[in-house]
């Protein structure tokens, strides 16, 4: 083969090789669980690793918030409406933290299935509506569930 053409062929092959490796590695990486964010169902199924920093997100179960009388510690359940997981947190909770609201807790999952959080952040959802609308929606859903 003409040396010039041979060079071109090699350069083209190198480009093809590099791009296929790039695509292959990216697809491999995307298939792996790269996010350390777990839903309570995943925690319940034992998918979350124990004793390492993870994040658990979901809704705070209504009526589950218990505050210790002598310390700052708070216990509450976080649910994704299928399973729930108990979270304990020793610190000041953000303003928007409330029962029935979304939170993201960062902490370690103990072998007893309780997450000891080092940080709790209120995660506000993407819904924006006037209070009257929210009320009406609530009423509508209450009526719907009664029927």
């Amino acid at each position, binding site marked *: 083969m003409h040396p010039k053409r041979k060079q071109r062929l090699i350069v083209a092959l190198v480009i093809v090789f590099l791009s296929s490796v790039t695509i292959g*590695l990216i697809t491999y990486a995307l298939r*792996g669980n790269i996010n350390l964010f777990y839903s309570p169902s995943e925690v319940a199924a034992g998918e979350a690793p124990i004793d390492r*920093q993870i994040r658990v997100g979901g809704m705070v179960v209504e009526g589950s918030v218990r505050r210790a009388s002598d310390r700052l510690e708070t216990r509450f359940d976080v649910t994704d409406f299928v399973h729930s997981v108990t979270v304990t947190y020793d610190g000041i909770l953000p303003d928007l933290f409330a029962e029935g609201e979304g939170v993201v807790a960062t902490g370690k999952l103990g072998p007893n299935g309780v997450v000891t959080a080092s940080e709790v952040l209120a995660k506000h959802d993407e819904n924006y509506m006037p209070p009257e609308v929210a009320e009406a929606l609530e009423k509508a859903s209450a009526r719907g569930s009664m029927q």
Partner: protein
Amino acid sequence: MTEARDIDIFRYCRSQTVRHLMLMVRSPSEVVNPLLFFLLVIVLFPLGLGPDPEQLSILAPGILWVVALLSNLMICMRLFVDDLEDGSLEQLAMARVPLSIAVLPQLLASWLASGLLLSLVSPIFGLMLGLPLEVASVLVVSLLMGTAIMLLLGAVGAALTVGVQRGGILLALLILPLYVPILIAGTRALNEALQGGDPTVALALLGAGVTGGLLLAPLAIAAGLRVSLEL
């Protein structure tokens, strides 16, 4: 003319790499200084944070990567400066080999002298910061790939700023934001390894960065050098 055009780019690359390596051997301070900087800054952290090994090992991945990033920045600042001054950069641009390929030998030589060396000695620094020996392999592999991407990206910035007076701070401003994904993937791989997780995902992303960077960065470097040479 046709004879002159038929230059063997592989032989050219090989000889250029050797030439650049010889230049570095002749002035070893350029090789040793970034390593010394790496060592000095790493020594500063235990002195500033206190010698508690547990606390240090938590911070170690971040410290190692940030310092590797900074010493890489130091190398990038010097990357094309001498070549521009003695005119060999202009020769390179005029050479019969495409500029995007012609810059590769210098990058390879710089990486061998900086990234490779730094990665290979990094387990020692890791030990100083309380990292267990088990994660040494992940540290070395992630740094090998990370320093390569950083050099490729940094060379783009160096090519753009080589003609500018006092381009050092400017280079940092241009390049450090682009280093963020590398920093995240690198520390992630180490943290995964430290906590008994699976570092392969983060390592795969770094690998993709190396190959993707090898594809795209030379084009940007060549374009940047042409701008700096006002060709």
